[in-house]
């Protein structure tokens, strides 16, 4: 374990990307090197393609290259425990992005609350539908924790606050064609569908709109036949679709902030700094989840066309990361 | 007490009745011949007697003891050894391992490869098979593969051995070697059931003969009590004479453009006139098969050219040879002759898609019609043109290959071992087909180890180690031909 300093003398940071087949994570992948340059960090990156065994292997490869700290986004929050304890034994600090490990210590968790996404989507749809009607939820893969959090929060919120809304959960494995097929079938069985919650805009946006178009159900919000759609991610296409009145809202997952603050905290950890629970300088709060685990809960705003919905921002807001991509 | 007995066994395959209440007994210490036309049910009876299949009705016993259940392979192995008609050599395994499959010599529980190779080498040497036993069996030519099977079956030490057409792929030398071994074993009290379409062989070594016809038992008698004519009559169910002597064909004029002209093809030159039948003979490894396969384009020659009429063939191209008018029967019907899963009609017409329709389309009706014609012309025993060839008996499969060769009305017909595994009557049919093709003006080249196949030939060219050593006009004597084949010049 030769902890060789990097050639440039800058601290060497390892970043493992969780996957490269979704728009959201690819934006994250693009932000990471930009932010690293800004913070003066040397980078080694790997990609674990949504496979925790590969993540473990990648972390081993990173440590044999002498990284001083690791940023990762384990999509399986339980299986990462042995890797965390290995890193701890080598005194390599860890920042996790997007997910919070079930066991083990990390320096900081940087995430927006996936349960909050589900709840926000539920509240928006519940209000727009006036508390009654049928809603389809395009879920991801059951084995994905983020997807599961969104599903559970959405379902719980519906049950508690809008018991008269009927929810059809459609598992899609994060696949657009599966989503289109199941949505089509659901509409055939329930032509009076009034709302759709898409758990990933990058995957589901175009297929959903296309299915609705085919069924002549894609009408402006002013029309009584309008189907209300809430998406999730905040990619540029969603913002455009909101502006065009095709969908009604999305939850903007802060890809830029994920990259920025993950590296920020990692650098701080390498430099030996520490943090305390409480408000931060970037409209978020750090909470202590359990001893040894702090979590910076980044804001993930609901985005609507006009920003009129309580707590939402306008789709045209230039601060949204989806509006900053060139 | 019979060494082996079948008591009114029956077996059907779908609509085909392969065996219908057949009973037979094999007396200990005798060589018992089982004969019958292609599809009579001989091989089916073998599969019942060796436990590969269970009879639908009836029983099998050995030494008066009922046979073991089908699942008890070891039980069967201890009672009977067999050379099956269909090859049971496993191509990917080494020759040595094929010989000792499932009874490899072991030392401390592990297979002793060296010992096994030595034993196999030794065993095969006794059969004149001098090969590197560590090579995969698929590298051996078909005759040697057959010898491997025979050597293996005889080395089990069984008291009862079944040989299903062991001689179909062998040349004269190997056959006499086999007979010598059988005689020796017989004198030690070993019992044989021997199947062959060469009736001469039956008279040469067998004591008793059983005839099957159309899945039924017809007759069992001491060989000395039945004449060859009676035997043929029992097999065919009609009183007829033996093979018509092929002698009285008109002499062929060898003038004009020859039907086939081979010039210095890897050192071999020959010409066949239109209407002429030429035999090509040679003992093991004389190169006759290789030469014939090169002519038809299955192999590419290093040098030399082949002309069909005026047309020069593209080397190594079967399509070119076929379109020039060559029709041929390949040596190994299983490997190159047939697509087992396809129907009789489809196999028989595979070389002539242009006859079945225009613009690349094929008419199934036309195909089945041609298939039906082939079934009639070659007397193929099949339930219809749509039956998969895999379900036919070996001899009938060979007739399908012949039908395929004749499908394009060839101007040159090249036949490699054309009658291997074919019954007496079918042999007649096949050779008659060749003769008729010649009568229509085709040049015919017959390449065979079976001297009977060469009899219709106008002349026989003898090959020895790749070069022509002799040429004999019709009317040769067996011994002079064999002497020439062995390289002994008169």
């Amino acid at each position, binding site marked *: 374990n030769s902890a060789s300093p990097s050639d440039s003398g800058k601290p060497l940071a390892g970043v493992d990307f969780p996957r490269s087949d*979704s728009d959201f994570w690819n934006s994250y992948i693009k932000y990471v090197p930009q932010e690293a340059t800004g913070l003066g960090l040397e980078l080694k990156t790997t990609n674990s393609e949504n496979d925790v065994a590969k993540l473990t292997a990648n972390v081993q490869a990173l440590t044999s290259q002498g990284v001083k700290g690791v940023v990762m986004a384990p999509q399986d929050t339980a299986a990462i425990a042995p890797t965390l304890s290995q890193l701890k034994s080598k005194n390599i600090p860890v920042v996790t992005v997007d997910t919070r490990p079930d066991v083990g210590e990390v320096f900081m968790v940087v995430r927006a609350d996936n349960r909050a996404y589900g709840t926000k989507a539920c509240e928006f749809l519940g209000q727009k539908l006036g508390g009654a009607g049928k809603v389809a939820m395009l879920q991801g893969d059951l084995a994905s924790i983020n997807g599961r959090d969104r599903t559970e929060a959405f379902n719980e919120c519906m049950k508690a606050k809008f018991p008269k809304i009927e929810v059809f959960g459609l598992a899609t494995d994060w696949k*657009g064609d599966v989503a289109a097929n199941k949505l089509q079938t659901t509409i055939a069985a329930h032509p009076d569908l009034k709302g759709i919650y898409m758990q990933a805009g990058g995957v589901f946006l175009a297929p959903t709109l296309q299915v609705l178009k085919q069924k002549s159900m894609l009408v402006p919000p002013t029309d009584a036949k309008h189907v209300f759609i809430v998406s999730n991610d905040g990619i540029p296409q969603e913002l455009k679709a909101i502006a065009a009145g095709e969908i009604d809202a999305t939850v903007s997952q802060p890809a830029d902030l994920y990259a920025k603050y993950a590296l920020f905290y990692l650098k701080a950890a390498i430099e030996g700094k520490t943090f305390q629970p409480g408000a931060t300088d970037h409209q978020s709060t750090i909470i202590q989840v359990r001893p040894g685990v702090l979590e910076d809960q980044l804001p993930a705003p609901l985005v609507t066309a006009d920003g009129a919905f309580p707590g939402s921002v306008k789709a045209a807001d230039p601060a949204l990361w989806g509006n900053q991509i060139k | 007490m019979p060494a082996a007995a079948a008591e009114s066994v029956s077996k059907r395959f779908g609509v085909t009745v392969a065996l219908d209440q057949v009973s037979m007994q094999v007396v200990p210490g005798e060589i018992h011949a089982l004969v019958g036309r292609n599809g009579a049910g001989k091989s089916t009876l073998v599969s019942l007697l060796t436990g590969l299949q269970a009879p639908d009705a009836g029983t099998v016993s050995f030494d008066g003891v009922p046979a073991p259940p089908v699942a008890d392979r070891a039980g069967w192995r201890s009672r009977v050894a067999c050379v099956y008609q269909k090859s049971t050599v496993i191509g990917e395994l080494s020759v040595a391992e094929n010989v000792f499959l499932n009874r490899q010599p072991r030392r401390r529980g592990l297979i002793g490869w060296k010992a096994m190779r030595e034993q196999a080498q030794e065993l095969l040497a006794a059969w004149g098979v001098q090969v590197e036993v560590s090579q995969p069996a698929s590298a051996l030519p078909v005759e040697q593969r057959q010898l491997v099977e025979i050597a293996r079956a005889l080395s089990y030490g069984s008291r009862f051995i079944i040989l299903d057409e062991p001689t179909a792929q062998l040349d004269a030398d190997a056959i006499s070697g086999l007979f010598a071994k059988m005689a020796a074993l017989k004198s030690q009290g070993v019992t044989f059931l021997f199947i062959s379409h060469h009736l001469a062989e039956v008279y040469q070594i067998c004591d008793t003969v059983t005839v099957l016809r159309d899945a039924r038992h017809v007759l069992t008698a001491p060989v000395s009590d039945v004449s060859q004519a009676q035997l043929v009559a029992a097999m065919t169910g009609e009183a007829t004479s033996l093979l018509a002597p092929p002698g009285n064909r008109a002499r062929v004029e060898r003038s004009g453009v020859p039907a086939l002209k081979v010039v210095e093809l890897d050192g071999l030159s020959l010409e066949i006139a239109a209407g002429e039948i030429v035999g090509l003979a040679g003992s093991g490894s004389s190169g006759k098969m290789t030469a014939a396969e090169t002519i038809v384009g299955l192999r590419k020659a290093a040098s030399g050219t082949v002309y069909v009429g005026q047309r020069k063939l593209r080397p190594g191209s079967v399509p070119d040879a076929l379109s020039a008018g060559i029709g041929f029967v390949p040596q190994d019907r299983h490997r190159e002759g047939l697509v087992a899963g396809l129907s009789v009609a489809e196999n028989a017409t595979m070389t002539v898609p242009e006859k079945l329709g225009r613009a690349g389309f094929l008419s199934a009706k036309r195909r089945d019609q041609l298939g039906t014609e082939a079934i009639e012309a070659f007397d193929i025993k099949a339930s219809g043109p749509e039956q998969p060839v895999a379900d036919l008996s070996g001899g009938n499969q060979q007739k399908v290959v012949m039908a395929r060769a004749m499908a394009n009305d060839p101007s040159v017909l090249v036949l490699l071992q054309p009658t291997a595994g074919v019954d007496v009557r079918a042999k007649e049919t096949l050779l008659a087909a060749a003769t008729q093709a010649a009568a229509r003006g085709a040049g015919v080249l017959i390449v065979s180890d079976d001297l009977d196949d060469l009899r219709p030939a106008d002349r026989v060219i003898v090959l020895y180690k790749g070069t022509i050593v002799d040429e004999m006009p019709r009317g040769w004597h067996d011994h002079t031909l064999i002497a020439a084949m062995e390289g002994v010049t008169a």
Partner: protein
Amino acid sequence: MKLARLRDLALIPAIIAIAVVGYLVNPVFLNSENLINVLQQQSEISLLVLAQALVLIAGRMDLSLESTFGLAPGVAAWLVLAPGITHGLGILPPGLAIPVTLAAGVVIGLINGLLIVRFQLNGFIVTLGMLIVLRGLLTGISDGKTFFNLPESMLYLGNAVWIGLPASIWLSLILFTAFIVIAGYTRFGRSLYAIGGNADAARAAGIRTDRVLWTVLILAGLLAALGGLLLTGRLASVAAAQGQGAIFTVFAAAVIGGVSLNGGKGTIFGAFTGILLLYLVQNVLTLGGVPAQWIGALNGAIILIALMLARVTSGRAQE
């Protein structure tokens, strides 16, 4: 032939059983709208099944089809879309999108042919390698993102309605019918069976086996590209993962439908019943509102049962 024809129908009882169960689960199942939906949903992937069936009959397999399904339209989108929000090069006019898609399929088929037929590499592993390479290329050119805002021409086929039915249904039915005829009644089609059954014998019968194999591999690439184009149109986008994992379904459909992995056996009609069955099952499960965590197990169980039904009705061992 008669036996083969009977075996062709082996899945019909299973399909009827599914239809009855489907109706009991939810009467909507038998609505024409729902049935049209099912036909449309399977139309794109059915072209992959068709392609795979042809390759399998000829005794080979082509795993790379699932990647062609995504890459072919992906390449077209990449070349056609203007750089900007949607990741693209914008070096070709939008009108070329369809030709480029199909050409990509052909090129992939050519590469497969080169490696398999010309260099005699193992087809399974070549196309497995190609599957990974092509999938990787799509991820690479798309940066892992979805291509949106596709030109109209790419959307047309996936969305058009011809005489009351979606165009993709028509295309799928027409192509299947055409290939039922081609496989059964043309020289090319029968040579596929001959090559798959016994390549040596086919060669000895004068069939130009190499040429036929090249043709079928290119054809397969082309069909996969067309299928991808249809899906792209229907979803109005090309996801970086388009087609991922589809090859499992494709093999399952072909094999359930009676096409042998050993070559030379099976029919195009059988393959069609195979994919239809799988999509009917999916549809019934969706309509039945089966809890998400049990869908997988049920789906697999139904496939196994259909298989056993087919075994019982055809009455012979499967290879």
